[in-house]
Each structure stands twice: as C-alpha cells, then as structure tokens.
C-alpha cells in the first residue's frame, strides 16, 4: 500500500521541524552528533508516525512493535521523535547529555521511556534485535522488530554473527534498516573500510535485501512494506542516505559526525532550514 498524500505531507513537515529542533538543541548544548541524526530522520519518523504499532498507551504491552537504534549516537533525533510521541515531556530535550537528566548521550533503556534497549557500542543492536525477534516469535506475537544500523557500524564483527543467526532462526519479524550515508567518523566508508557489495554480502548471509532512498518517504515506505511482507527470513533495507542531510555544509562531511556547532554555522544552518 503506497503511503497516502496526507501522511506524506504530514511527515515532510515533521521532518523539517525535527531538523530545526535538532540543530537548535545541539547548538545549545554544544555536544552530540548532528551528521548521523540528520541522515536517519526520515527513517525514524516514518517508523514512529506511520509504520510501527507503538503508542504511549501500548508502551508496556508485549504486542507492540520494537525499535532499536543500533547507531546509538543518533540518539538526539530518536529523543526528539520519542518526545513527540509523548513518551516523556518535550522539556527534557533541553537537558540532553546534562548531569541529573533523563536523556543520556547514548540511548539508555533504564532512564528513558520508549528506549527499548541501551545502545551505543556499535553492532550490539542487531544482535539484541535477533533475541527480541526470537522472543516475540516464541510468544506467538506478530509484532515486528526494527533495527537501524549505520554503514560504518556494520564493520563490527558481531553484526555478521547476528546476521548468521537471524538467517538460521528465520527471523522474518526482524527488519534491519541500513542508514547508508557513506561516511564514518574518520572519513568516508570507502576510505576507512570499504564495505564492497553490500547487497551481495547480506544476500550471502541469507537476508532479503531491499534498496531504498532513505530521504524519500514513499520509497522508504514501500521498502518497509515489502520487508514486512517477506516471510522466508530477515530483511534489510539498504537506505541510501546523506550524512548531515538538509544542511549543505554538513552533507557528506565526516567532521560533522560529532562536532559542536559554532554561532556562524548555526546561523547558516538555520537559514537553510528555513528556506527548505
């Protein structure tokens, strides 16, 4: 089912607003990761505001869909999304990464409602996602588990251990979404550790691979629907994205993995976000 025009418009507005909130927030606190937050914005909002069965009301129910942010450093955009869902007051965002606050530098399930699993060390999310998906199957729940990973993240060995297991246990309720922005902390993925043919790698591990444009809501929506409909095993959506998407001087630049935003940069960014 293609996404409705109304939903498309609604999500487009949300994405624009979230990017602005993110820049305001990270400028204010002078810490946190803008690049990878901006590359997975559409992925997060589409999942939380359209695809996943998760609300404030069913947050503790076994039958809810689960989301795991493997690339935990994109926490700021996850928090903005969770606050919008009403899982905690939006005012908490202002205290991100500050002492005595709820919102940790990387997602923490013990402190933050809506965070299913603590992540940060790369690669662990997909592994836990396998266990979660298998657990839900054992309980005969038809809920889905979504895991967002970075393309730098999949250099971790445990990702491939998990990939083998998901395939062996036929976890067709597990959907990985690769936020494939081509850039990692020290440089481009091509420079640091080229991942080669990503489709071939995942297919060789027994996964159903779907290509999508990670900033095109319709494309992503179709890909998620296809993944949900695939019943023979796990699916991965290779979502082509841009690190720092939406702010020209951040786009595709590894320095924007986790750099604080200066006053001049902030003003330039805001101008761009206003004219979108």
């Amino acid at each position, binding site marked *: 089912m293609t996404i409705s025009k109304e939903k498309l418009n609604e999500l487009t507005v949300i994405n624009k607003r979230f990017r602005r909130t993110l820049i305001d927030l990270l400028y204010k606190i002078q810490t946190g990761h803008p690049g990878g937050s901006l590359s997975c914005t559409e992925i997060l909002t589409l999942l939380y505001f359209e695809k996943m069965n998760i609300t404030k009301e069913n947050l503790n129910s*076994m039958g809810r869909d689960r989301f795991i942010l493997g690339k935990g450093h994109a926490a700021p955009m996850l928090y903005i999304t969770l606050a919008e869902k009403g899982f905690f007051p939006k005012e908490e965002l202002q205290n991100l990464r500050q002492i005595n606050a709820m919102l940790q530098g990387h997602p923490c399930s013990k402190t933050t409602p809506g965070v299913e699993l603590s992540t940060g060390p790369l690669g662990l999310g997909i592994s836990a996602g396998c266990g979660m998906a298998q*657990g839900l199957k054992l309980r005969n729940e038809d809920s889905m588990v979504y895991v967002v990973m970075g393309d730098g993240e999949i250099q971790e060995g445990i990702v491939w251990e998990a990939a083998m297991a998901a395939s062996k246990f036929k976890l067709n309720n597990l959907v990985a979404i690769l936020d494939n922005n081509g850039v990692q902390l020290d440089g481009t993925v091509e420079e640091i550790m080229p991942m080669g043919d990503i489709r071939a790698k995942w297919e060789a591990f027994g996964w159903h691979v779907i290509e999508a444009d990670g900033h095109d809501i319709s494309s992503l929506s179709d890909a998620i629907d296809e993944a949900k409909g695939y019943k023979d095993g796990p699916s991965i959506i290779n979502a082509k994205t841009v690190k720092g998407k939406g702010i020209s001087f951040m786009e595709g630049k590894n320095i924007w993995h986790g750099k604080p935003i200066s006053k001049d940069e902030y003003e330039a960014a805001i101008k761009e976000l206003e004219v979108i």
Partner: protein
Amino acid sequence: MKKSIRDAYGEALLELGRENSEVVVLDADVSGSTKSITFGKEIPERFFNVGVAEANMAGMAAGFAATGYIPFINTFAAFMVLRAGDPIRSLIGYGKLNVKVAGAYAGMSDSYDGATHHTLMDIAFFRALQNFTVVSAADAVQAKAATKAAAFHNGPVYLRLSRAEVPVIYGEDYTFELGKGEVLREGNDVTLVATGVMVQKALEAHELLKEKGISARVVNIHTIKPIDKDLLTKCAKETGAIVTAEEHNIYGGLGGAVSEALAESCPVPIAIVGVKDVFAESGDYEQLLEKYGLAAKNILDEACKVIKRK
C-alpha cells in the same frame, strides 16, 4: 564421593526448563561441554545454539530478556568474559537485564587445554561490572542449588562453574541462600575463606591445621558479590586473621573482595591464596593446582604465617 559440577548444572537447567516456560538456553557450540545440551535435548524449542559466536549469544540473550524471558547463556568462562564482554557489560549489565551468564570450565579446570582456555580473571571482571551478582559453586549440590537460585533472582547473575569432578560437600537437604556465606567448620585461631573448588582444599587445610593444634574456621563464600560482609566481620573479630583461597588471579578476586570489606569494618591480617599473576600451562588438574599454589598445603602455610601477624 565425587560428582561433576557441570553435570549438576545441566540437570538444574533441565529441571528449571520443565518448571518454568520462561527459561530459554543459549549456547555457543559447546553445549556438550557446558552440559546445556541436557536442556536442549528435551526442550529444543527453547534451546538456541548460535554457533561459535559468543558475543551474539550474549546480545541475543539481552533481546530475550527484553521480551520477558530468563535466558541462560553458556560457553567457557574464558570466552564469556573476553568474547562476549561487550554485550554483557553494555546490554545486560547497563540494562540490568535478567540474564544468567554461566561461565563453564572456570579456573584451570579445563586443565589440558592450557592457558588460553583457563580463566583466572573472570571474578575480577564480574565483580567490577555494575548490577551483576557473582556466584561460584563449590560442589555439584551447590551448583545445582545456585543455578536455581540464579533463575529466581531478578537481575543479571554470573555463575562460575568448574569442569571438574569434585568431592561432594553438601547433603541433599542443602538450601542455598544468595549472598550468605556459610560456616562449614568452626574454629577460633584463623578463618579460611574459600570459594569454588578451593572450598574443598580449605576443608583439607582445616584438618592439617588441626594436627598442628590450630583451630581454623572454614567459610564458603559462594556469593562473591554482594559479599557477606557481616559474616566476614564476625569471623575477623572472633578469629583475628583471615586466609582467602580461590582458583583465580590473586588480583581482583575473592581476596580483593574480602580485603575491601574488612578494610572498612575490621582490618585484621589477611593472606591471599590464588594464582600469582601468571599464566598457567597444560597438565593434569590436580598437578596444576599444586604447581600454581592452590593445594591444601598452601592454605596451611599461609594460615601459619598469618596467625603470627596477629
């Protein structure tokens, strides 16, 4: 009479599995060694062999716990700490998830496989890991009881299990209480505080000391964290000297835990019997224990010395 600790663990897992449908078991291709296969054979639908991929085993267990299950994960203690250490810390410890981590073949009990397969730093790791309870079994009866207690405890537990067949210390009427040390022999001159298979050595040392006219109390600390500080303080006050004994490096293990506890409550002379910060080697288990200073005689010698420091 001797009985294998790992066989007892396998039996406990199976009984737990029969009683509680929330118990799931994972293994990393060593289920025949850890004896988790005992569970796997009868309850295959809740048994998951992840292959030689210890980190993913721990990560998956975190996911199972997040859906309400009580996962037991199994591999050699050496690989549990070093291969699965990140998900154990970052997912299970940090998330305070209800995962039971069973470290098989702990200490030098996988003796012939050599130093790569020995584990002399797991207690240090799990003691320092927030939210974890650390348990070390002295015999088959205690291993079984401790495994069941771990399942009923809500939170992450590390179970330190030996490969060895060891003399049975406890009767079948034994009841295990997490966090409580046990006085196995009374005595007034010194307290021998032991854990795991060294409890048996401490009992032997008690007899050797008796021949010398020294009255040694023997305490089994099966729960290394949280440690039974009240009992240790009482023993320190009443006997005035302590010898700890563990199949672990002298750094970061039981000796450290006891010293830290008593430094605050009742500082008395303490001697630590353990492996002296070296890698061991392949060989017969008992010969290794002897060569690396873990025989009853070593406890005896340290007891005689520590009494003089009172």
